[in-house]
């Protein structure tokens, strides 16, 4: 079976529909069959449907994603309650330890994202990984900073990513590699993203899984849950009918 490649973090300017179309068709041309665009939480269903139609024309599957950037665990829980049923992917930008811990153990969170370049503010340590391994969250690594940073900043980032990827592997936390770009020229083919993962010592097989299987699994799981046929984990409605 042909492998499905996915980029779960694209960031086009949603106000510019031409730019959105360009990004979507570029992703399709680069070999992706599934992409996720980060939407603002107040985006209407109609707007999402319009973007789905654009991606359908480009023969690519579009998943809706929202990035949460809560300041406290309580704010995270509130936002999850409000948004979980509206979006197929929920990523949490972890900027404090409390938020990171809550996000790792909450089964409604799909992706843990640590944007800071300061290693003291990247909270993906063994405790975090253990919580994530009991939940459903994956570690998201965006490739954009690797392309845009240079010199000591990139060296520091690589060293952090190497440590985090090793911890994730030890605790069986899935890794998702995404581009995180808003600019067409920074988009890369899936195998090129996987090649860049070798810079933080991710082996080839794991890197390929991080741009395909792991990402696709998140979207599939959430689509199942959001479907009207979903009853509970492992239980879904097969057919409606009268009592026997």
């Amino acid at each position, binding site marked *: 079976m042909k492998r499905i490649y996915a980029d779960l973090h694209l960031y086009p300017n949603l106000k510019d529909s031409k730019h959105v179309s360009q990004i979507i068709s570029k992703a399709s041309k*680069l070999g992706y069959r599934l992409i996720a665009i980060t939407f603002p939480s107040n985006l209407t269903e109609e707007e999402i449907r319009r973007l789905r139609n654009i991606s359908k024309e480009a023969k690519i599957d579009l998943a809706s994603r929202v990035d949460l950037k809560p300041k406290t665990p309580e704010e995270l829980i509130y936002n999850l309650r409000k948004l979980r049923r509206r979006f197929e992917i929920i990523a949490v930008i972890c900027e404090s330890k409390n938020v990171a811990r809550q996000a790792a153990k909450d089964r409604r969170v799909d992706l843990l994202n640590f944007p800071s370049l300061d290693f003291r503010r990247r909270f993906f340590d063994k405790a975090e990984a253990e919580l994530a391994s009991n939940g459903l969250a994956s570690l998201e690594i965006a490739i954009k900073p*690797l*392309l*845009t940073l*240079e010199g000591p900043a990139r060296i520091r980032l690589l060293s952090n990513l190497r440590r985090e990827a090793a911890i994730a592997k030890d605790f069986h936390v899935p890794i998702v590699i995404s581009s995180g770009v808003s*600019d067409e*020229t*920074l*988009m*890369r*083919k899936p*195998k*090129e*993203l996987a*090649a*860049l993962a*070798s*810079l933080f010592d991710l082996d*080839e097989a794991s890197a390929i899984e991080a741009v395909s299987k792991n990402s696709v699994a998140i979207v599939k799981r959430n689509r199942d849950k959001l479907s009207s046929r979903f009853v509970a984990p492992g239980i879904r409605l097969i057919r409606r009918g009268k009592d026997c």
Partner: protein
Amino acid sequence: MKKVRRRYLALEIDSGELFDSREFLDAVWSAVLKLYGEYGASRVGLALIDYDMEKRFAVIRTVHTAVDMVRTALASMTRIGNKPVAIHILRVSGTIRSLYTKTKK
């Protein structure tokens, strides 16, 4: 002496600008140097085999043990000179002939 096994890579230069072969090769070398240093670059055995500026197409050669390094370095390239660029690998092959056959398909 053991025979050196080589790999040929067909590349697409994704940019609105045009670059001459010298600019292109310098940029590839500097990407390899930036990521792997002089020691790493010395093991890559990089050479430009074919370059078509108009079609934005290039073929480079490397030793088979360094294909992953070259792939990573090419993916990390974002600029040639001051102009934005992305280099995409179209094909990797063991002979030039099969590379062109596969690329034409």
